[in-house]
């Protein structure tokens, strides 16, 4: 079947679902919804509808980005807009269904807003007028919250696989690479390396077996956008992977996900299955000469497994420890074959870049940072969420406009950006733009998009201690500067937070950090001192109070300090049989 036939069939199905005679109920069940109780609400809803004999089409969808409103449920009745109810609980779902499905009433206190051309049902506000959606420009997350991740036809009906079809029928592989290069797309995993250039490394490598690996290890605390894409719209990643495969001449794609993240795993695997059934993966895709296979590989819990060569080790089923380079992945990657590693977000942009063109993509964003930033906003902020906004917004706009300001009317004290290896910024950072280069020169990185907001109730030493504890816990142990350095740094930071520091501790940290930077094998050790350095720069006073006055400005350091220590083999003696 050719693409036009698949698309028109999908469109018919979509129209019947969204404009049919049966009410359509969408429930957000991405991880944010899950944690807020969406599955419990979904269960109650199904039982309630069955008991009352009410007919409705229930679809699980991903994250609309407004995580603070989860569980977020919307009902589309025939001829009406989608009506959204926020923070729904198992107690009030019954009332919502009874009142809105039977008549046009609803409990006023649960109403969030409406979305759709049909206008408000009564006098609700439009979701599009809320800053949470108004400021967003959703590209990678364009379908999140609207289509079901379990149904390929919903993706296709909304323009899905159009980019792949265009690439296969109208473009040569080098055209595709040029298009991605011209779009200015830079890798969203942290290093911000131009994606098109990265792809071109694989082109000249000998085949026939070549791999495109997609990294969704995402062990970063504070980041959930990769998982968000896979849970909300896995097909955009699969399409991006296939486009990358075509452009680079790769034969296989591997989506690498952390074990235990069931939502992303199940949805991606289901999506792969459906793509094969529709002839969009496998042999001779859409009747062309291009063949491409995709599978999921799981890693155990290991943050370092997100490093590209460690990732390849984990795919091969070994300990996720980084390899020495050279040889580089483009020459000797997973299973010894040429490989190319991309982040979920970078690949998920590819379908829209191909179908709408490089100029469209590069017109969004600012300077050398084109496109959008997928921000995971969490911490002391009124409206935490998963926001896809044009690059170039200021951090102040993100915190105040999207996030609704610091919670409890507290003052902004710090921002932790770019994951645990990123940095800490001070209260004067509101004017910094989300721009890879500007953030790097400010001493932080945009990294994978996590922004954790800390109010004046947060102690910088306490937060630094947790960041260092994380980095120590996750050090893989292969190279000693990182293995010993992290342990040493943690020891010192713990000493400071216990008001037990020794003279010269601050200088000692810098010296240990310098050794790690110079001598570590991978980014984990090289960047591991980053959070401390930036914390010392911006919050010297917090450190000084602990060291000289034996007190914590917020009292945080007086609480119990329970953090796990690294339990990897070098740290403990596991012996079989004991």
């Amino acid at each position, binding site marked *: 079947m050719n693409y036009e036939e698949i698309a028109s069939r999908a469109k018919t199905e979509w129209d019947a679902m969204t404009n049919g005679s049966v009410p359509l109920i969408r429930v957000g069940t991405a991880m944010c919804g899950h944690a807020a109780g969406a599955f419990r609400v979904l269960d109650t809803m199904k039982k309630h509808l069955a008991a009352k004999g009410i007919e409705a089409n229930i679809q699980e969808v991903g994250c609309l980005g407004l995580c603070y409103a989860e569980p977020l449920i919307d009902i589309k009745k025939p001829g009406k807009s989608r009506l959204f109810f926020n923070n729904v609980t198992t107690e009030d779902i019954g009332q919502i269904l009874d009142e809105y499905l039977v008549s046009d009433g609803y409990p006023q206190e649960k109403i969030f807003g409406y979305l759709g051309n049909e206008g408000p049902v009564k006098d609700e506000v439009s979701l599009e007028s809320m800053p949470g959606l108004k400021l967003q420009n959703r590209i990678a997350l364009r379908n999140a919250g609207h289509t079901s991740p379990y149904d390929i036809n919903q993706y296709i009906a909304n323009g899905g696989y159009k980019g792949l079809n265009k690439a296969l029928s109208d473009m040569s592989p080098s055209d595709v690479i040029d298009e991605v290069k011209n779009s200015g797309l830079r890798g969203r995993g942290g290093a911000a390396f131009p994606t098109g250039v990265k792809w071109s490394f694989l082109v000249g490598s000998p085949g026939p077996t070549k791999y495109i690996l997609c990294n969704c290890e995402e062990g970063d605390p504070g980041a*959930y956008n990769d998982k968000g894409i896979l849970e909300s719209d896995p097909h955009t990643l699969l399409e991006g992977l296939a486009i990358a495969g075509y452009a680079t001449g790769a034969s296989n794609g591997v989506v690498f996900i952390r074990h235990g993240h069931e939502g992303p795993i199940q949805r991606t695997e289901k999506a792969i299955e459906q793509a094969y059934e529709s002839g969009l993966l496998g042999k001779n895709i859409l009747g062309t000469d291009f063949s491409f296979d995709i599978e999921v*590989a799981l890693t155990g819990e290991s943050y370092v497994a997100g490093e590209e060569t460690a990732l390849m080790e984990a795919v091969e089923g070994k300990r996720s420890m980084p390899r020495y380079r050279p040889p580089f992945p483009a020459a000797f990657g997973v299973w010894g074959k040429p490989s190319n590693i991309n982040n979920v977000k970078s690949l998920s942009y590819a379908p829209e870049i191909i179908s709408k063109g490089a100029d469209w993509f590069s017109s969004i964003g600012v300077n050398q940072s084109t496109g959008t930033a997928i921000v995971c906003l969490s911490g002391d902020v009124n409206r935490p969420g*998963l926001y896809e906004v044009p690059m170039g917004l200021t951090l102040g706009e993100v915190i105040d406009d999207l996030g609704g300001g610091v919670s409890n009317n507290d003052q902004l004290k710090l921002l932790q950006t770019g994951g645990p290896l990123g940095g800490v910024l001070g209260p004067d950072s509101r004017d910094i733009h989300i721009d890879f280069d500007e953030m790097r020169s400010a001493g932080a990185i945009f990294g994978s998009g996590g922004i954790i907001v800390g109010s004046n109730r947060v102690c910088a030493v306490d937060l630094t201690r947790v960041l260092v504890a994380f980095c120590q816990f996750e050090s893989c142990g292969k190279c000693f500067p990182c293995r010993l350095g992290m342990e040493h740094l943690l020891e010192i930071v713990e000493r400071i937070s216990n008001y037990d520091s020794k003279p010269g501790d601050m200088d000692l940290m810098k010296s240990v950090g310098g050794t790690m930077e110079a001598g570590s094998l991978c980014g984990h050790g090289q960047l591991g001192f980053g959070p401390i350095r930036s914390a010392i720069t911006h919050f010297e006073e917090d450190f000084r109070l602990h060291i000289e006055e034996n007190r914590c400005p917020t009292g945080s350091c007086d609480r119990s300090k329970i953090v796990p220590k690294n339990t990897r083999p070098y740290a403990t003696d596991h012996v079989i049989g004991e």
Partner: protein
Amino acid sequence: MTTEKDNLRTTIKEAIDSQKRPTVTVLSSLLAIQDSIGYIPEEAIEEVAVHSNTSINSVFGVASFYPNFRFTPPGEHSVEVCWGPTCHLKGSTELLEVVLDKLGLASEGDTEDGKVSFRFNTCLGACSQAPVLSVDHELYGNVNPDMADKLLGDLDQRKTHYNRSK
């Protein structure tokens, strides 16, 4: 007559053989076993070594590297508390205190009656709902100490996560 050990071995082999993903590795087999019985017994290390044609040492090297593997049977219920930076800022310390106190534990481990296994998690992936706690792999967000106390009090009413009779 089959013994319990034989049954365990059969279950392990089934878990290894029934993997659906096309690429089977030492790690994928270990994860499949962990999913099936909740831990990695010595027999599993041996069976994976045989199946992957490698040594017991290298299999154990992989198993001991990833902190999500455990080597003794898990409790009927699993409880995890996230200690990532966002959860830390939002009060996971207070949560940990309640949870550890309620379970009678000082740190990671199993309760004295063996019913509950507690562990830290570096990130449960729902930072926007911090602090997050998971009970039998179901996530709970915006948890305050009272909610944690209640969740742990209601553990007996839950179905167990791992089907150990399989």
